[in-house]
């Protein structure tokens, strides 16, 4: 299945996967480490498990960045 992840087209072997599965595939160890936009809308952390991705979905992982000094 083709997904657009952080602006780049990627082919994912699975044809049905949840957002939380994608996070695992993408090496995001804890869901609290990122904020996720699916097709422009933020998804609440507790919905990652039930959110099933479709072909051509646009997923943005926004990473926490706390540095500044």
């Amino acid at each position, binding site marked *: 299945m083709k997904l657009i992840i*952080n*602006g780049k087209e990627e082919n994912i072997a699975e044809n049905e996967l949840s957002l939380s599965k994608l996070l695992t595939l993408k090496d995001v160890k*804890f869901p*609290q*480490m990122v*904020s996720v*936009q699916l097709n*422009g*809308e*933020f998804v*609440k952390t507790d919905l990652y498990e039930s959110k099933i991705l479709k072909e051509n979905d646009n997923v*943005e992982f*926004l*990473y*926490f*960045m*706390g*540095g*500044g*000094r």
Partner: protein
Amino acid sequence: MRNDELLRYSRQIILEQIGGTGQEKLLASSVFVAGAGGLGAPALYYLAAAGVGRIGVADWDAVDISNLQRQIIHFTDDIGKLKSDSAFEKLHRLNPDIKIERFNLQIDAENISDIIKDYDFIIDGVDNFPTKFLINDAAVFLNKPFSHAGILRFSGQTFTHIPGGACYRCMFPAPPPAGLVPTCSEAGIIGPVAGVIGSVQALEAIKYITETGQLLSDRLLTFDALTSEFRTIKIKHANNCPICGDNPTITELQNTELPTCDI
């Protein structure tokens, strides 16, 4: 404007988007920079150089040798000096015509509103999540625009909050659990990334004050130095945002325990 001011700012006055009117606006404006570190250093330099008439700088820390690799407002002979003093000295030498206000303190829920209420634009150059969220919350409550930024390793991100637009909590409703996201001292940071992102923050302040171009409001700019890629991601104001959404759960400022600093 005096003759020497016309000369000092001539290269930006010549820009049709700035002009004499924009320069007058800059000279009459005020910007508060929280943190005189990696992000604060370039932001402060460029704001002072551009003639922002009043600049506030807050930092509680003293200059350490490990800061010098990126916090370019501090020099080797400043080691041990308060960062707010060290920054003040450089900025005053760069542009003696403007007013620099020093705050040698840690920003907290008790003092932040009183400090930022007197400034037109706020720049977040702090290095920890509790203070980043505090700056967001105080700015939202006071209807102040501010520039958020974060940097880590070879990457950085920044976005601008304009009253009514998306805020930091629209993207990240709450700080990450302590220890999950490393800090610069734990994970490292390459100096010029701070320079790139801090310079964008200065640009946002200048653009806001002179009403020039499009701000990074409702957009997050991300920069990856390893791939040399800049991206902007559209950020929608979240109706369920805990502070600026329809049913806010955060109604007052709160201090969160700061992680202990490991210099």
